[in-house]
């Protein structure tokens, strides 16, 4: 029986394993050094905040794996011997495979800051990072202040986590406004204000110079690049993005760039070796996507697709319309299609922006300024229907159509106030004045 070995038990690897099992009787083994069972990485924050316990983040009960004949092996992989099709494991064992899938996800970026490996400095990605945070910041008596470096999605989640235990947070953001490499200005600034409303000390256009140590090799303070200010703290969170977690592959002959290089079939340069999820890097980006897509949904989609190939129906990774979501403290964010920030948008991309006076809801609709084609929408504080926008994008609707039919896309709970009329009148008003 063909033996499929998957390195990594995250959403990509587990989705792949589940789909291979549905399609075939192959022997499946998942190797992971992080945890015994699959858990939802995006839910780690809720454990620290006390909303859930670790076991609640596991989407399948422990009996699921045996029942579906998916073997789980807890170990880190040290080396991949592609000639003999063997994995060398850190626990000393070896594991043979017929087909190998690398799905090892990401690791937090470190940019060579002095003191970045001190005790009390951590990313927030792995289960181990959470354990580490729990040890260093159990409450606001042991951790009197935390400094977070890097204003992205994980940074703001870490700020929310620490805030839930009343630990004062200083949030260093390199950009002039939160996540404005991705978000258009109006949205980004609304989130700035929301962060401040949560009493988080947000420092924009601020870089970390170094992390200072006390006598025991533990974090004592950070120094700000621009001002030289020293901020005493007990924990430093490094959340300046992630990069593929592939150090153990470097000793093999699998081609890597920033990630494991794959073609559209998710195949590496070595036959029978594939890569999916955060750690895979496309030779050429697909459409407006990045070559490395470190997103939950894309990992899952790659797993769904590769299962077909592994089971004999060779298939390209051909994702549909882009979508994503996040939550910034209390404000939910969803995006469908492409809305780029001022920094990275093409000149044909025009925006219509509407913001509610309560400063917690806004939308930005992107359209082509010549053809009026609807390109995408960002929505904050108003839930919208994935299916509706997916259809509109496929049908290449124009912005007028989208604005007049927006109510069909509403996904807020029943009895919520509707803003479509307000949005439409703002849109019409803008047209008249433009």
């Amino acid at each position, binding site marked *: 029986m063909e033996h499929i070995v998957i390195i990594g038990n995250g*959403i990509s690897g587990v989705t792949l394993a589940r*789909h291979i099992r*549905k399609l075939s009787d192959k022997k499946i083994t998942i190797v992971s050094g992080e945890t015994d069972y699959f858990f*939802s990485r*995006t*839910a780690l924050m*809720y454990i620290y*905040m*006390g*909303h*859930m*316990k*670790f076991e*609640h*983040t*596991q*989407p399948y*009960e422990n009996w699921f794996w045996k029942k579906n004949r998916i073997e789980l092996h807890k170990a880190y992989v040290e080396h991949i011997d592609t000639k003999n099709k063997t994995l060398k494991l850190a626990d000393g064992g070896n594991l043979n495979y017929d087909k190998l899938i690398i799905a090892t996800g990401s690791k937090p970026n470190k940019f060579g800051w002095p003191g970045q490996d001190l005790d009390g400095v951590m990313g927030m990605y792995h289960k181990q990072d959470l*354990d580490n945070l*729990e*040890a260093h910041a*159990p*409450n606001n008596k042991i951790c009197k202040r935390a400094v977070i470096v890097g204003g992205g999605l994980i940074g703001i989640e870490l700020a929310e986590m620490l805030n*839930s*235990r*009343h630990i004062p947070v200083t949030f260093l953001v390199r950009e002039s406004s939160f996540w404005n490499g991705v978000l258009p200005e109006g949205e980004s600034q609304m989130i700035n204000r929301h962060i401040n*409303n949560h009493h988080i000390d947000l420092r924009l256009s601020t870089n970390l110079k170094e992390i200072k140590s006390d006598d025991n090799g533990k974090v004592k303070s950070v120094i700000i690049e621009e001002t030289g200010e020293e901020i005493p703290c007990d924990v430093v969170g490094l959340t300046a993005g992630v990069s593929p977690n592939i150090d153990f592959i470097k000793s093999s002959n699998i081609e890597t760039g920033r990630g494991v290089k794959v073609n559209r079939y998710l195949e590496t340069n070595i036959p029978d070796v594939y890569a999916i999820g955060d750690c895979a890097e496309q030779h050429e980006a697909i459409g407006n996507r990045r070559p490395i897509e470190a997103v939950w*949904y894309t990992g*899952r*989609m790659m797993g*769904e*697709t590769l299962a*077909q190939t592994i089971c004999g129906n060779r*298939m*390209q*990774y*051909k*994702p*549909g*319309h882009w*979508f994503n*979501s*996040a*939550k910034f*403290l*209390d404000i*939910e964010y*969803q995006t469908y299609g492409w809305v780029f920030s001022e920094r990275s948008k093409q000149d044909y991309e025009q925006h219509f922006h509407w913001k509610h006076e309560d400063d917690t809801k806004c939308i930005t609709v992107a359209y082509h300024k010549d053809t009026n084609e609807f390109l995408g929408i960002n929505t904050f504080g108003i*839930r919208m*229907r*994935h*299916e509706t926008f*997916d259809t509109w994008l496929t049908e290449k609707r124009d912005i007028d159509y989208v604005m007049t039919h927006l109510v069909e896309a509403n*996904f*807020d*709970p*029943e*009895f*919520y*106030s509707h803003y479509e009329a307000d949005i439409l009148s703002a849109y019409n008003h803008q047209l008249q004045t433009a």
Partner: protein
Amino acid sequence: MSLAKPDAVDITTKQKVALALGIIGLLILVLALFNTNFPNKGLFLTIALGLITVGTVIYSRDAYLTKLEGIKNDGVWFKSISSRGVWGWIVGVILTTFYIVLYFYPQYLGLGVDGAANTGLISLFDPLSQLLSGRNASQWFVYGTLYTIAILAFGYKFILKYRHNRYQQIRTVSVMFFQLGFAFLIPEFMYVMNNNLPYYDLKSVWPLNYYIFDEWSVNGFLSNGNIGLALILFGIISIFVISPILTYKYGKRWYCSWVCGCGGLAETAGDSFRQLSSKKMSAWKLERWLIHLVLVFSVVMTTAMVYTYLGYDKNDFWLTRGVFIALVIGFLTLVFAGVMLFRGKELGKDAKYGAIGLFATIALLVIMHFTGTTDHVFYVKAGALRSAYGIYIGSIFSGVIGTGFYPILGSRSWCRFGCPMAAILGFQQRLFSKFRITTNGGQCISCGNCSNSCEMGIDVRHYAQKGENIVRSSCVGCGICSAVCPRGVLKLENDSMEGRINPTEILLGNDVDLMDLVNQK
């Protein structure tokens, strides 16, 4: 995690004061329980209930109004009371003890037996009962008052907790209204207007209200002219007409989380315990057996009870025993045939269990008809079946376990494992209703907040992460899964029956060809 449980974040000074006020209020009740003879009972009762209410109100305001609107679940699994810690068990034991005393030893609460005056806790409530209905309090009046106070005070807390969510607010106002009006005040006023009428909480529908068809109850209604007749007709229409229509349009939530008193308490005072319900597959299996067994028990028990006070002779009344049994069997068969005709394919293996259940019930009824005598059914005294149901289901299951075990089993263990009304509504919700929880395409991140907060123990994530709508008979439509979802994935809605159940393997957002290939099969 090798570390000890993190400390729950300390409560503020204001919250401590509020807590102290509430405890003083409770203390007055405890002192009364131990026969402290308060001089001015009306005054002390007002102070006690007032302090409990004011304490809860102040505590809630400080807990929620000092923060921005949003989900407020921080530390739920750290706090001893809401995570089966020491406080959880202590409260569980106290509540359980209270229910046992209430149902089986009311004399310890001070109930005056054989016309004697009330003493203790119950006598403290005499002035309020006199005010409302001109009679002294009973243990049920005390219980009803405390129950109502709990729903009102904790309902207020819940409204503040979800002050960004209008669905939650309106729903909570609804349960507060139905508890205060329908369960508490209206029955008292009905007594004032006509003190021969049996106690009737209009919103309590058979089979949850298992005593409505008792002989004393039916006689009570029938001997009171048109109003009595209207009331008992309303009781019958409630279950056979009103409830199917509303459940078809809105799902069982119209009752379970908008109207019902058990649901009302679970949603308000029980809210802190919702995450404790088990989401295991094994719990779901147990649930399906248990709740349907209770339903069969309640149908057989009610039929047997009505049967015993009907006559043999057509000349007394058209509804004789034979006609009645035939009607019941005919109705059950009709329901089963209808379900098989319209939903047989969808049910698959479950249809077999349904058929077995139906034939077991019919067999029981037939055996009863041919072995029953004037006062015996199933060779036991007719009343024994009814009192067994009353004790084991009505009191122990719904009260002692259902509410007493809030801090251990979660807030809806009765609704989930025992309530026969929930079983009927759920059956209909699963098969003939417009209600579903829609999953928003491919946006689920499997975080588990939805499953964690489901008081009915539904593994919501199991469906959401497959892009599948949630159409489960047990869902009471409380909407908390939708509220806590960080990615806006879940929406409760009433829409067409078409496409309501949509099993998928590949989620929206992937290659359309792949979706077609795998999903259309």
